[in-house]
């Protein structure tokens, strides 16, 4: 399965988790209190976020605290390029469309 930053933010619960731990390091239990879902579901999301290298864990006594991997978040800085590519792709399809739109006229000449 894909494990990158975009996979990490693809899910609304994971985005919410990112939002929460961006403010402060939190334990899975503390995080789970903010959601309707089970503690297990939160753990699963945390595992995916960890696999995407978007969060880091830190053991403090018996508790594991999760915090945001700031450096990794910076990958989102590539966003403008992603956005540009969406438009580039659209426009190249439009190029083809414009060519076909022009055809009937030129054949009728």
């Amino acid at each position: 399965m894909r494990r990158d930053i975009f996979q990490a933010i693809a899910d609304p619960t994971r985005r919410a988790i990112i939002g929460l731990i961006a403010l402060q390091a939190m334990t899975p239990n503390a995080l789970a209190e903010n959601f309707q879902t089970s503690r297990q579901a939160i753990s699963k999301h945390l595992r995916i976020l960890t696999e995407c290298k978007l969060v880091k864990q830190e053991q403090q006594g018996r508790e594991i605290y999760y915090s945001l991997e700031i450096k990794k978040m910076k990958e989102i800085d590539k966003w403008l390029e992603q956005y540009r590519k969406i438009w580039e792709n659209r426009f190249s399809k439009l190029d083809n469309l414009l060519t076909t739109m022009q055809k009937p006229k030129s054949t009728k000449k």
Partner: protein
Amino acid sequence: MATKNQTIVTAEKGKQEVFIIREFDAPRELVFKAFSNVEFLEQFFAPQNRVTKYEYGNIHDNGSYKYSTLDENGKILCTFKGVIHEVAAPERIIQTAEFAGLPIKGHVVLEKITFESLPNNRTKLTIHDVCMSVADRDMMVTSDMERGLGEIFNHLDSLLLKGF
């Protein structure tokens, strides 16, 4: 295609606007036609491996539109809607756009699409989007909503703005 037309996207840090600029090897009337007819929009507007479907699209003065982007299985990834402020054929279209999936309403984008005639039957297209806040703007270009990636939380956007 004789030349490769570059797609230019500019989004200055700390501003509410985005410019998307592209030239086409086709006359202005034709490019305008492609942007003002649902039938054509559906053929090119969807990102890769996606389908754009209009629920309604009346691209004329005081018109309105609503379209969804679907994945290859027909699942709706996101829906956008807006009203058409002005259609001045073949020069410009001014409209609003709102991502219908957001939990909070009111994050509307004002969009001006300008079509300029260039020599040799070419056309320059400029899409000028103005968002209601810098955070909205950043979310729009960041979140890649059309690929089903959804929005990113506001404080995350502000973190990005500050460059951490």
